[in-house]
């Protein structure tokens, strides 16, 4: 008898589970070893509580009424539930607070894309530690997690979420026009970006060229100088922030894993300042991401800086397998 399960969900059988468990233990070991205590939160929360974190991301794909008529939602990530937990349970605690998790989250899927509705994430949240030290600490933990997963070739992209918002404001572009352009930047639609920006009144060709050139700057420390040469106060501020983080990373000996990327923009609404993405050359998809969200805790009534990251466990596992077979044998 075949009994179906919804597309985008799956069973895990012992062979895979054994490998996943090994990966889970390695990552949680890294997090715990660095003082991050593991927490769990319910998969189901009140929709209005999640929506406090961010209207867009908390827009859960799975919402339903329970028998008493309350609107509930399945979480779409762990950052917002942990912000809720910290505000509720750790309001008077000594900061910074270091928490980690290994949990399933739920998102909408488009059919026939091999996307998962339910997926496992492992990550950390560092609450109450400002940039640049807090950011650098999170990146250091991420680098250690990638080492523990044997992803020696993996790279951490470091960008700045405020750069284009401020740059476009500098160009006099506000409101819907700016949101539309930020959408193009996040999707990296350079053709559309150039066309749309050129059409705006008061935006010079020079400014269009600056915006396009910035979005293509990625590499080592030298790209910060290249960015600065393009000029402007927004660029100056963003490169200063990234430069400070990079100095911290150099001091911690993990800058080698980091690629400065001025074109990096994640579409999650709550990021501010540093944003992170994780890539491995063996996989065409992003392995994880994170960054700073200094405004998020405030929405839950506790005004604290925060940063963190999450790795998609299934993708990390696929990358491990591909890296192993590339190296020509089992580990």
């Amino acid at each position, binding site marked *: 008898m075949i009994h179906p399960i919804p597309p985008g969900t799956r069973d895990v059988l012992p062979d895979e589970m054994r490998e996943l468990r090994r990966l889970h233990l390695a990552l949680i070991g890294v997090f715990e070893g660095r003082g991050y205590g593991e927490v769990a939160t319910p998969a189901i929360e009140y929709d209005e509580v999640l929506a406090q974190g961010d209207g867009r991301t908390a827009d859960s794909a799975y919402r339903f009424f329970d028998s008493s008529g309350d609107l509930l939602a399945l979480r779409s990530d762990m950052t917002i539930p942990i912000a809720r937990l910290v505000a509720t349970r750790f309001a008077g605690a000594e900061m910074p607070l270091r928490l980690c998790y290994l949990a399933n989250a739920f998102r909408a899927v*488009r059919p026939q894309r091999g996307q998962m509705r339910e997926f496992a994430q492992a990550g950390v949240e560092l609450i109450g530690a400002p940039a640049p030290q807090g950011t650098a600490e999170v990146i250091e933990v991420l680098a250690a997690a990638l080492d523990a997963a044997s992803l*020696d*070739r*993996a*790279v*951490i*992209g470091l960008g700045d979420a405020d750069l284009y918002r401020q740059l476009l404001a500098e160009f006099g572009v506000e409101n819907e026009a700016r949101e539309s352009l930020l959408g193009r930047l996040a*999707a*990296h*639609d*350079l*053709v*559309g970006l150039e066309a749309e920006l050129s059409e705006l009144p008061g935006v010079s060709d020079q400014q269009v060229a600056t915006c396009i050139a910035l979005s*293509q700057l*990625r*590499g*080592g*420390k*030298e790209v910060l100088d290249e960015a600065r040469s393009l000029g402007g106060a927004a660029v100056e501020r963003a490169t200063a922030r990234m430069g400070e983080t990079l100095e911290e990373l150099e001091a911690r000996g993990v*800058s*080698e*894993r*980091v*690629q*400065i*990327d001025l074109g990096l923009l994640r579409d999650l609404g709550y990021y501010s300042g540093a944003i992170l*993405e994780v*890539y*491995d*050359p*063996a*996989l*065409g*998809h*992003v392995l994880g991401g994170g960054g700073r969200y200094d405004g998020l805790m405030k929405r839950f009534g506790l005004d604290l800086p925060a940063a963190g990251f999450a790795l998609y466990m299934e993708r990390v596992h696929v990358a491990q397998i591909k890296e192993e077979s*590339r190296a020509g044998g089992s580990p």
Partner: protein
Amino acid sequence: MAGMGRAKADGPLKLAVPRGALLGETLDALDAVGIDTSEARGESRSLIFPGQSITLVTMRPSDVPTYVEAGAADVGITGKDVLLEQHDRVVYELLDLGFGRCRMVLAGRVGDERLGEAQRRLGMMRIATKYPRIAERHFERTGRQVEVIEVKGSVELAPLIGLADGIVDLVATGRTLEENDLEVREEILECTARFVANRVAHKLRAREVDGLTAKLRESLGK
């Protein structure tokens, strides 16, 4: 260079090349930037043409976003029509290559008022197309209700034998429309070939991707 030390590229960059109408001009554009396309031009039935720095992989234009999104191909060339129809595919659109120019149009039978008639008397037009999402978005944006019927083959057939009141299709010269007694009623958008990249390849093979983008841009005289 920081960050780049660890990411050792796996072999030559894989470039997805669209077969069909865009193939000739795509190969010309690649020739112009010094990529050897002689193998791909030959009579060979192969789909993959390995090269020194770039491997050409030939496929249907509508498959290019699929391969590039997954990273099976690092970069690719395909029409804007394909990218719009599959707009939820995550690929970076780096360059408008300018060739393969054609128009997405709404067309109806010559001298036949069925489109307007259907709209007026039934409140709804039936539109046959190979581009259901582009069509839906166009009518939604212009505030009209339509029934979009997806067909795979010659879409011109649909209004001729009564499947639909009109069609949304890609037109290069307009000859096919003419031969089938159809005419353009509305222009929806203009499409050209685009150079796209996988998100991870764009980050980890930055130098190669940027180099190729710059050369293509230069040879197009932009």
